[in-house]
């Protein structure tokens, strides 16, 4: 897909994305702490089923199961040297689950390489790691890239530049929290300047995912909308995870999630979906709510 065609598409309508993949796979039996990328090779059928469930629920864009599929991350979970294979297989599984018009976004998360003062990595090393993963995704035929859950603007910019260099559309989202003086990443990157920087680096759509509840993200959409005119992507969690001896629970209901997604779309977000704790029932509820609000 050409970046211009993508821009045109999201200019015309709100695009409904998928929900969280990792937490859905956990509910399907993925062990806590096991990397989802293992299932791409061990249980491809289940990855397909998860994607398919989102497509059937109404997702028009789904994310490949490659959040941790950069070379270093793969090596750290025992999948060394399998970057190309896993990214390609993941794209294939996503594509298999699609309807003819569904878009496949090559999902790219943080490399795990930390820049100073947290670590000793360089932006060049991060760029190389991401380049390898992104080339594999592009070769396997993704329609666009979705860079997500970035917490360091420096890494996010490197990722956006690498992705847009491959000629595909790029959506880029970071994970912000609400602090006393506004919305920041854990590294101290401020919301609006970060989104502006990612847009300037070449992303067609920018925004936020993970970490916060749908109502907090509604505030982020509003804060961004007041200052910048860039297509926004919003993918909140199903609330804050609550851990008890029985396991992890996300408290927000599908209806509450859907209501906030509509609010965000009304406020100008063009790509809406879910992150951790959401499942196909959340996307289904969101679809109904978007239709009821005549946003579809």
């Amino acid at each position, binding site marked *: 897909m050409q970046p211009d065609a993508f821009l045109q598409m999201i200019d015309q309508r709100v695009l409904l994305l998928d929900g969280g993949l990792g937490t859905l796979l956990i509910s399907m039996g993925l062990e*806590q*702490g096991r990397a989802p990328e293992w299932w791409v090779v061990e249980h491809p059928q289940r990855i397909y089923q998860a994607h398919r469930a989102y497509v059937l629920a109404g997702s028009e864009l789904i994310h490949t199961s490659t959040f941790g599929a950069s070379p270093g991350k793969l090596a750290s979970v025992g999948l060394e040297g399998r970057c190309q294979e896993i990214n390609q297989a993941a794209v294939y599984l996503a594509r298999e689950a699609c309807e003819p018009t569904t878009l496949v976004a090559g999902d790219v998360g943080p490399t795990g390489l930390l820049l100073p*003062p*947290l670590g000793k990595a360089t932006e060049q090393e991060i760029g190389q790691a991401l380049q390898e993963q992104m080339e594999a995704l592009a070769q396997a035929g993704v329609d666009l890239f979705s860079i997500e859950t970035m917490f360091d603007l420096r890494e996010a910019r490197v990722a956006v530049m690498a992705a847009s260099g491959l000629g595909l559309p790029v959506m880029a989202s970071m994970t912000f929290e609400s*602090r*006393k*003086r506004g919305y*920041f*990443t*854990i*590294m*101290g990157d401020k919301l609006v300047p970060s989104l502006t920087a990612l847009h300037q680096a070449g992303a067609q759509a920018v925004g936020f995912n993970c970490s916060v509840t749908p109502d907090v993200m509604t505030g982020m959409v509003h804060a961004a909308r007041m200052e910048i005119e860039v297509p926004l992507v919003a993918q909140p969690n199903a609330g804050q*995870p609550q*851990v*008890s*001896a029985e*396991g*992890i629970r996300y408290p927000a209901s599908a209806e509450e999630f859907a209501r906030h997604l509509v609010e965000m779309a009304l406020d100008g977000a063009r790509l809406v979906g879910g992150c951790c704790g959401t499942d196909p029932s959340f996307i289904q509820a969101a679809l109904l709510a978007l239709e009821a609000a005549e946003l579809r």
Partner: protein
Amino acid sequence: MPNNLSELLPQMQQAVLDGDEQEAARLAQLALEQGFAPLDAINRGYLPGIRETGRLWEEGEYFLPELVTAAVAMKAAMAILNPAIEREQDGQAIGTVVLGTIQGDIHDIGKTLVGTLLSANGFSVLDLGCDVPIERFVQEATQIKADLVCASALLTTTMLSQRDLVLAVREAGLKAKVMVGGAPVTQKWADEIGADGFADNAVAAVEVAKGLVVHRAA
């Protein structure tokens, strides 16, 4: 040349707040050369810097880079002051601690700071690092007859392993108390999994640890 400690203390605090590793180390060296008690330098100089760093984090003024560099500065000072403390204490630690970030989790900062502060307060600390398997906690605790096993977790997924750690320590028949901490960890969680201690920041962790070894001695 400063001739009393009170001139150095604010500088020590500032070095931590600035995350200035070299300055923190220089001041520690200076304090020793001037014959000041290393524990005073820690408790009245560097530690207030760590507390203030924590407060600025809560206030939304500081972020992860500031926390990390503050901890690095504190550690640099400790590397110089610790040997002097050990000489003073004549090798008598108030308790032995095995400490680590639990398996599957590579988050280092909080755990390391707790270790630094525990050793600053007279504990003998064995830091096992990150991504530590439960068996290794048990093994090392058995080996050094630890009084405390401290496990950190930053992720909601990995904190579940803290429960397994408590069980493993009990099953191995160890007398060691188990302390848990980390961003998503709460007192409620600690109670639920039967941990002996919990603290929501590194400074508080020292007091909890002291309480647990006193109980043990009694």
